[in-house]
C-alpha cells in the first residue's frame, strides 16, 4: 500500500505535523489486552458492584427497575440496526427510518400530540429544549417551574436557561403536594411564555391537570408537560389537558438503567411547533418508483444546515434506545399497556396499604399516585436506606431538602416487577427499623 501512496513508511504520512507538537514518547497507557483479559477485567469490576439484579429495588425518581422483554436484545443487537449510521442515505436505511417513524407514531399515540422527534439524550435535556421551543414560539423570556419538578431536571434546565438569559419563576405547591392552580395563576406574569407541569410530579402525585391546563391556557403561555410515559397507560394525555409540548424519560420501555445512561428522552409537540423542535425527525414520502419510503425531514431546523441559527445543537441522539422502546411498545399493544399501568397502580397501592399499618410511618400526601409515593418516617429516611441496604434492599430516595421535605421523607417507587413478598418485606424492614433503638439499626 505504501508503494501505491508513493511513500516509504507510515511515519512519512505524519511527517508534515509540526515537530514541536508531535508526541515524542509512546502513550503512557498499559499494553493491549486480549479479548479474554478485557472480559475478565469487566467481570471483576462488575462483581464489585451491587445492582438491581441482586438487590430488591424501590428506587425511582425517573429511572425504574422495569421488565425488559427477551425479544429486545436479539433484535436490537442485529448488526443491521446496531451498526448502521444515522440514515443519511435513505435508500439503504429504510429499516432505521421506518423504525424511527414508528417510534414517533407510538409517542404521538401515547401523548395525544401530533409530532415527535427521534429522541433526546434524556428527560432533563428534553425538558430544557422543550422550554426553549415554547419560549421561542411566544417570544418570551420567563418560564414557570413547579417546586415539585424533578430536581435533576431542574438543574439541567437552570444551566440552559442561564445560557439563554431566561428567568425562572417557581410555581407554588399546595399542602397536598400538587400545584396550586390559583397560586400558579398569580405567578404567570406577562414575561412568562411557558409553564412546566410534571405529572406525576417528583413526589409521585398525580397533578390536577385540568385545572392547571386551564390556568395556563388562560394566561396564553405554553404548557409543557414532563411525564412518565408509563403513566400514560392510564393517566390523561398531555394533549387532553392542553399541553403543547410533552417530554419525558422513556427508560422504563425496555432499557436497562446502566447507572443512568444511555437513557431515552422523548419530545412531542403539537403540529404548530414542528418546525421549531430540536433533533431528527423522520417523515414518510414517496420514491421515484411510486413506493412509500421514509426520510429524515424538516432538516432546515438542524445545525448541519442552519448552524448558529439552529434550534438546537443535538446531532447524535439515543437511536438504539428508541428502537428498544419501539420494540417494547410493539410487544405490549393497547391491552398490554393498560395491564402495565394497572400493575404499577396495584403495587403502589399495596405498598401504601403496607405503610399505613406501620407505627411511625405515614403517607404525608393522600392524593392519587401512579407508581411512586412519599413515605414519612419518624426517624431518618437516610438511616432506613442504610438499614434496608444491609438487608439487600434499595429502599428509596431520601427527600430531605426537596420542596419542603424533611429528613424523614423517602420517595419509594414500585414497578410491575415487584412481588407481593418484596413489598411485604419492605414493610417488615420498615417496621423493624422504626421499632429498634437507633443505635442498633445503624451500627
Amino acid at each position, binding site marked *: 500500500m505504501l508503494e501505491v501512496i508513493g511513500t516509504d513508511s507510515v511515519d512519512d504520512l505524519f511527517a508534515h505535523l509540526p515537530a514541536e507538537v508531535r508526541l515524542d514518547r509512546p502513550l503512557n497507557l498499559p499494553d493491549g489486552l486480549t479479548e479474554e483479559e478485557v472480559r475478565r477485567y469487566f467481570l471483576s469490576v462488575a462483581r464489585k458492584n451491587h445492582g438491581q439484579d441482586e438487590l430488591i429495588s424501590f428506587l425511582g425518581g425517573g429511572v425504574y427497575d422495569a421488565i425488559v422483554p427477551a425479544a429486545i436484545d436479539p433484535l436490537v443487537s442485529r448488526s*443491521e440496526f446496531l451498526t448502521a449510521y444515522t440514515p443519511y442515505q435513505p435508500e439503504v436505511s*429504510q429499516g432505521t427510518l421506518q423504525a424511527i417513524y414508528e417510534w414517533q407514531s407510538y409517542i404521538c399515540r401515547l401523548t395525544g400530540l401530533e409530532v415527535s422527534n427521534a429522541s433526546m439524550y434524556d428527560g432533563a435535556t428534553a425538558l430544557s429544549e422543550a422550554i426553549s421551543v415554547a419560549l421561542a414560539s411566544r417570544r418570551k423570556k420567563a418560564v414557570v417551574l413547579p417546586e415539585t419538578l424533578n430536581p435533576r431536571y431542574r438543574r439541567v434546565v437552570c444551566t440552559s436557561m442561564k445560557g439563554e438569559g431566561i428567568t425562572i419563576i417557581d410555581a407554588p405547591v399546595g399542602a397536598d403536594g400538587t400545584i396550586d392552580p390559583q397560586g400558579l395563576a398569580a405567578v404567570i406574569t406577562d414575561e412568562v411564555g411557558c409553564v412546566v407541569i410534571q405529572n406525576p410530579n417528583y413526589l409521585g402525585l398525580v397533578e390536577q391537570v385540568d385545572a392547571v391546563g386551564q390556568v395556563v391556557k388562560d394566561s396564553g403561555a405554553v404548557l409543557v408537560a414532563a411525564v412518565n410515559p408509563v403513566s400514560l397507560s392510564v393517566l390523561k394525555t398531555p394533549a387532553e389537558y392542553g399541553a403543547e409540548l410533552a417530554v419525558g424519560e422513556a427508560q422504563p420501555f425496555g432499557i436497562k438503567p446502566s447507572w443512568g445512561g444511555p437513557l431515552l428522552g422523548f419530545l412531542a409537540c403539537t403540529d404548530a411547533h414542528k418546525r421549531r423542535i430540536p433533533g431528527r425527525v423522520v417523515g414518510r414520502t414517496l420514491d421515484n418508483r411510486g413506493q412509500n419510503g421514509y426520510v429524515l425531514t424538516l432538516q432546515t431546523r438542524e445545525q448541519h444546515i442552519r448552524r448558529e441559527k439552529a434550534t438546537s445543537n443535538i446531532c*447524535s441522539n439515543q437511536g438504539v434506545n428508541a*428502537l428498544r422502546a419501539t420494540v417494547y411498545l410493539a410487544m405490549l399493544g393497547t391491552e398490554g399497556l393498560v395491564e402495565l399501568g394497572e400493575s404499577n397502580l396495584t403495587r403502589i397501592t399495596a405498598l401504601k396499604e403496607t405503610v399505613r399499618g406501620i407505627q411511625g410511618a405515614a403517607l404525608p400526601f393522600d392524593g392519587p399516585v401512579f407508581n411512586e409515593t412519599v413515605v414519612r418516617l419518624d426517624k431518618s429516611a437516610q438511616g432506613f436506606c442504610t438499614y434496608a441496604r444491609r438487608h439487600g434492599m434499595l429502599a428509596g430516595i431520601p427527600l430531605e431538602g426537596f420542596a419542603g421535605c424533611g429528613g424523614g421523607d423517602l420517595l419509594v417507587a414500585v414497578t410491575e416487577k415487584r412481588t407481593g413478598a418484596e413489598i411485604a418485606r419492605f414493610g417488615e424492614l420498615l417496621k423493624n427499623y422504626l421499632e429498634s433503638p437507633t443505635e442498633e439499626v445503624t451500627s
Partner: protein
Amino acid sequence: MSNESCPATEVQAQRWNATLPASIFDKGAPGRRGLTFPRWDGQPVEAQLPKELCRAEGADLPSLSEPEVMRHFTQLSTLNHHIERGMYPLGSCTMKYNPRVNEQVVALSGLADLHPEQGPEDIQGLLEALDLLERSLCELTGFAACSLIPAAGAHGEYLGMLVIRAYHQSRGDEDRTEILIPDSAHGTNPASVVIAGLKPRTIKSRKDGRIDLDALRAAVSDKTAGIMITNPNTLGLFENDIQEVSRIIHEAGGRLYMDGANMNAIMGKTRPGDMGFDVVHLNIHKTLSTPHGGGGPGGGPICVAEDLEQFLPGPRIARQDDGTYTLEKVPGPDSTSIHSYFGNVGICLRALAYILRNGGNGLTRVSECAVLNANYLLAQLRDIMPVPFDTGCLHEFVASGSRWKEEFGVRTLDIGKRLLDHGLHAPTIYFPLIVDEAFMVEPTETEPKESLDCFVATMKSIYQEAQTNPELLTEAPHVTPVGRLDEAGAARNPDLRYLGPCNCG
C-alpha cells in the same frame, strides 16, 4: 466461475433486494400479545384512579404476538446498510468496526442493572472503571481533568463552551462572549456556542484549507472568549499553525477548544493538550468504538486544562487513599449541569474496553492504519476525483465532484447514490461546505485492503458510466429497496406519524 462480484476485483458485493413491511400499526389483531405482566401475588387491593385524571381512551397501539414483532423488526433490519455488511466510508463519522466484546461486557449484571441513585458503596467497581477511563482520556489528549458526562459530541461542545464561559465569568470577564469558528467547522460547533449563551464568529479558511492567521489576528479582541477548532480539520488536514493560533488566542485572553471528532487520525502522534488547546471533546462513539445504532447513543467526554477543572460539573469521581472511590459534589452553583445523571455511562464503558483492548501502542497503530488507508484510497482516486486541498491527507480527504458536474452533468449526490447500487455506502457529501460538490471519504483502519480495492474499482467503473451513460448515475439507485425519495415533498407536507396507509401515490 464466480458469483456476482465486485467490479474489477474478486471481492463480492451483496445485492440489495428487500421489501418494506407494512406499518406495524396495520399489523396484529385484538387479543394478541407479545408480553404479559406478572399477576399481583400479594394481598388483594383496590387500585383505582379518579376518572378525571385518566385518559379518555386507551392509547391505540397495535396488538402483536412475539413472533409478529420479531418478524416485523427483522424484516425492517434487512433494509439497512451496516458496518457488518460492508464499507461505510462516511467522512467525519469514523465508521469503524466495533468489537463485539464491548457489547458483551456492558451487558453484564453488575453494570447494566445499576440504578443511578445508587451511591458509591454499591458501585465501587464502576467508579474504578470510570476513573480509569478519565485518566486514560487525559493521557490520550494531554490534559489534567476529564468529565465523562456529555452524552454526545455536540453535548461535549456545549459543556466545553459552558466551561469557558464560566471561566471568564469567574474572572469578571462577562463581556468575553465571542467564539471564533473556521468556516469549515461542523454545524454543531456554532449551534453549541449559541445555546451556551455565546456568540459564534466565522473565520474564513486559507486557500490550503487551514486557518488564516491574518484573519484570525484581525478577529481577536477583548470580546474573544475563545476559538473552536477541529484538528485535523473537517478537510482531514492538520492545522500546522496551531501553536501560533494558540499564541494569538491566549494573548488575546481567550481559550482554545478543540472538536476532537477527528482524533482517529492522531492518537499517539500528537495531543490537543500539547498543541496549546485548553479543552477538547472526544466523540468516543467514533474514535473509541461504539456501534452507531442508526443515530446513537454516543458519548462526548471533555478533557480540560488544570485551571478549568473547577468548572466541570459534579459529581466528580475521587480515589481515596485506601483505594476506594467516592463521588464528590462540586462547590458552587451547578452552572454546568447538562444531564440528569452521569451521561452515557454504558458508552463510556465501551470506550474503556476499547482502550484496554488496544493499549497505548494499539491506539497509535489504529491512527496509523486509519491514515494509511485514507492515503491509499486518495492515491488511487485523485486522478478521477481531485482533492482541492490536497496538502497532507490524514484519516480522511475531501474530494470534489465539480469536474464530474461540469463534464458529465452528474452531481456528487448521483455518485453517492450509484455507489449504493454496488452494495457500498456513499461517503459524506456536501460537507464541509467550503468544498464544491464535496465528497468526503474516511475508510477507517478496520477496512481490509480488499475493501479499499473494491471501493476504488467501483469508483472507476462509475467514472466510466458517468461518461458513457450518466443516467445510470442521475437516476440511481436502481436496485435498492426504494429509489430516490421525494425529500422536498416530505418537508413540504410532513407526514410524521402513522394515520393510515399513505394514499398519496
